[in-house]
């Protein structure tokens, strides 16, 4: 178990910068999720930590050791790959034992560890099968088992759930969380799925274009996004953004007029989460929402439409959803914070 520190990590591929001056501290035993859209550099960053990529600049520490120049095998990390990368010519047992064998762990220990991991993940019955004889979910568990058997200082996960179906994904998510609690190991997890990111992380790191956009606990990041990008990336459906003008302590735009606690005069982008709005016909100002479509998913319903010319989504309670017809106009009142962003650089104000 160890702390992971990145200091000024930069990397380019073919003249294209992939990582730009990344600094990050992962405390011992933390579960850190790197999240961001595809191409943001999160996988490259993870692979740099694993030692599969060499940074052009910067240093990388695991525990107290500077591992920047060490090959992967000397870093004491384990990794679960998106494609699982199970060794096709080895049985499950051999797959689980491979890392230990390479480290010349004595055979009896190997056996105990494999048995232990198999029990932990419910793989006992599959030990003598080959990967091609396993289902997708089973393969995923073997891939995790392979990492677990090693008992490394740091676990790295590269989108390990993206090849599973939705139900299985939710189960495994819980499983991973439980494993983390049980092992207390440092885990770094890459995903583009914000639900996974929110549910799994102790600390969330949002990446964009090779830079860290924001870092913090999931709720911190969710409730206080540092940029419009982060705000839009986390939460489903995504936050609504309405360009507006701030003056006299109010933000105004076509169909929108809200009081805020600021007394500047400037152009802003107003951010409102779909979940943080309620219909309130009596509201003064508020949001005039023209509804086009109502989507009813059972527990929740979402109305899609426009505020002024801007596309807009809002959550509705059962009763309102049932009563709302396309074409009607609802007056909404924010229940949560009103986020304001700079229209040019997207920073939160």
């Amino acid at each position, binding site marked *: 178990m160890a702390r992971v520190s990145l200091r000024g990590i930069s990397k380019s591929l073919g003249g294209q910068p992939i990582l730009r001056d990344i600094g990050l501290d992962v405390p011992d035993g933390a579960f850190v999720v790197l999240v961001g859209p595809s191409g943001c550099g999160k996988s490259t960053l993870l692979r740099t930590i694993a030692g599969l990529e060499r940074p052009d600049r910067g240093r990388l520490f695991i525990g107290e050791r500077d591992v920047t120049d060490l090959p992967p095998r000397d870093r004491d990390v384990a990794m679960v790959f998106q494609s699982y990368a199970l060794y096709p010519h080895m049985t499950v047992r051999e797959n689980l034992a491979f*890392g230990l064998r390479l480290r010349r762990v004595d055979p009896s220990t190997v056996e105990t560890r494999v048995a232990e991991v198999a029990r932990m993940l419910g793989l006992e019955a599959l030990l003598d099968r080959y990967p091609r004889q396993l289902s997708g979910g089973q393969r995923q568990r073997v891939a995790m088992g392979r990492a677990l058997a090693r008992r490394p200082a740091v676990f790295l996960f590269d989108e390990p759930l993206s090849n599973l179906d939705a139900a299985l994904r939710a189960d495994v998510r819980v499983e991973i969380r439980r494993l983390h609690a049980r092992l207390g190991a440092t885990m770094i997890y890459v995903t583009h799925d914000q639900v996974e990111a929110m549910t799994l992380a102790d600390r969330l790191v949002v990446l964009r274009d090779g830079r860290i956009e924001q870092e913090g606990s999931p709720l911190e990041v969710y409730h206080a996004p540092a940029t419009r990008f982060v705000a839009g990336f986390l939460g489903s459906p995504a936050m609504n953004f309405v360009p507006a003008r701030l003056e006299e302590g109010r933000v105004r735009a076509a169909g929108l007029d809200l009081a805020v606690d600021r007394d500047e005069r400037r152009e802003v982008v107003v951010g409102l989460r779909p979940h943080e709005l309620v219909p309130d016909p009596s509201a003064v100002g508020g949001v005039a929402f023209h509804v086009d479509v109502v989507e009813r998913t059972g527990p929740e319903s979402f109305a899609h439409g426009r505020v002024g010319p801007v596309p807009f989504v809002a959550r509705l309670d059962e009763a309102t959803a049932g009563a709302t017809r396309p074409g009607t106009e609802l007056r909404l009142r924010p229940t949560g914070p009103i986020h304001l962003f700079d229209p040019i650089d997207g920073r939160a104000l």
Partner: protein
Amino acid sequence: MTGRIRWLESLLVHAVLLGATAFALYPVLWVLSLATSGAPWLEPRLWPWPVDPTLTRFVEVVGPSPDGRWLFGRQLAGSLLVSGATALVCLVLATPAAYAMSRFDFVGRGLTERTLLATQMFPGVAAAVPLYLLLDALGLIDTRTGLVLAYATSAVPFALFQLRATFDAIPRELDEAALVDGASRPVAFWRVVLPAARPGLAVTALFAFLTAWNEFALAATFLSAEERFTLPVVLHRYAAEHGARWDLFAAGAVLVSVPPMILFYWLQRHLVSGWTAGAIKG
């Protein structure tokens, strides 16, 4: 109605395939019947059945030499050895290089690939004499080692193309998983990538084997000890200037064809594993 059409179609397919099979086998059967005919053929013959069938030609080719030694046996063993060693040396040379070309980007890779392709384009007609002098300088003339080296290296360019495609088809994550699991690059290559590449390796080895197994000109020029002659050299001796024995040549040809046939049969499922997997993925 549709059942009938389907039946007709299936009949047509089989007719075409049977025709193609006949086309493929006909010349081979011709050689076989020449080898097993006890009497010469003097009619224009359509059907390649032997006249007055006999196996004496095979006995004559395979049997002991006049001095009582079983030369054919030694030559067969020698041929197998040279061809097997060629396959082995070719793999040893080509496999790591192909792996590097598949996995690493290095200065000069493009040049290397172009040079390898160029060796396939350059007719070897004028290269035999320099090669002879070179092997002579290395003291390898009239040795099987020299022959094996010459064959193996000439088989390397094609082997590289093929193995590279094989490795390209094996996901990089596999090597990376091994690296993270604690393997060095060579260990990952040896214990994870190579086992996954087995079909491609086998096919590459087959082609290298055939290079040596069928080669005549270099073997005849380089080897001067009868017991070291490879089978094509032995076979060509039946094509003497006066009194060529084509019947024995045919019998020998049939025998020489047996090992490749067995290997092809054995490996047929994998014959193009490397080619296809690589191309579809890209």
